């Protein structure tokens, strides 16, 4: 098997070796060579397609940052839900304070509702922990993919152009990350500038 200086198998070399074997087999006069040649050609094609797909994943336009962007989006969810939860808690604390000045009946009813809000607000902690686990899984997947891509050797020449959305579809990007998003003031200024 073809090995690199570091001892790792170099798939592109192995692929070339396989193609040479196929070529030599074809030149033989063996009666049953076609079945073997077909199998090896299938393997060769399969390796070529897989290398191409890995190459696209590794180097395709936009894919280089796919994992970090996804991670940023997930972390933004945590930030946004924390912000929303704190606003809900702000409101609940106001209700709790006001309830102290009411008659026992309505005061107790409001306090019970406020307690329910506090209890339900714990969802943010749970979802935050779940999302953190997903982020770690993504980071692990990214590392494994990089390792796999390295095993496949140079892939830049194999990278296929990523299918970018066009027309109206290209306008659908979902909510922007806060650090990249325009503020309402920015939008108003832009809108006004458009006449």
């Amino acid at each position, binding site marked *: 098997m073809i090995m690199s200086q570091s001892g790792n198998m170099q798939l592109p070399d192995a692929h070339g070796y396989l193609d040479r074997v196929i070529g030599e087999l074809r030149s033989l006069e063996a009666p049953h060579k076609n079945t073997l040649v077909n199998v090896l050609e299938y393997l060769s094609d399969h390796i070529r397609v897989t290398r191409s797909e890995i190459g696209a994943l590794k180097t395709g336009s936009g894919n280089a940052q796919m994992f970090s962007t996804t991670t940023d989006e997930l972390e933004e969810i945590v930030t946004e839900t*924390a912000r929303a*939860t*704190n606003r809900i*808690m702000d409101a*609940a*604390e106001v209700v*709790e304070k006001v309830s102290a000045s009411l008659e026992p009946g309505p005061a107790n009813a409001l*306090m019970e509702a*406020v*307690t329910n809000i*506090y*209890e*339900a*607000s*714990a*969802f*943010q*902690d*749970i979802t*935050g*922990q779940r999302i953190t686990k997903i982020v770690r899984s993504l980071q692990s997947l990214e590392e494994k993919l990089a390792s796999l891509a390295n095993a496949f050797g140079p892939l830049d020449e194999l990278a296929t152009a990523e299918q970018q959305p066009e027309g109206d579809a290209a306008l659908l990007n979902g909510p922007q990350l806060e650090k990249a998003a325009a503020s309402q003031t920015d939008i108003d200024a832009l809108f006004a500038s458009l006449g």
Partner: protein
Amino acid sequence: MSLNKNMRVVIVDDYTTMLRILRNLLRQLDLNNVEEANDGDTAYHLMQKSPPDLIISDWNMAPVTGLDLLRKVRADAKLKHIPFIMVTAESKTENVIIAKQAGVSNYIVKPFNADTLRAKIASVCPAMA
């Protein structure tokens, strides 16, 4: 069972929202003497300055986890007697067993409600009742 309103409680969680939830629920139990820490290390230093009457801690924190904190507290002659409630999303049997072996006083799984919190506090602070 009523609780000693003067008891000093240290709550530990790396999610500030959860600290706020805990503080508010404790306030509804008339427990207003509450101090917060965002991680196990900060909490431990807080306790060494002045030992609290009750510790309520999350498990999943870095770098000092709730389990680390529990073990440090139980190994500290000045703190080892303090009731320690673990409030965590870690609900596997092995987690509960390990926490129990480390000396946890009670264990609350997130999400929890105010009644559960009250019951667990009352169960670990009988002298406070």
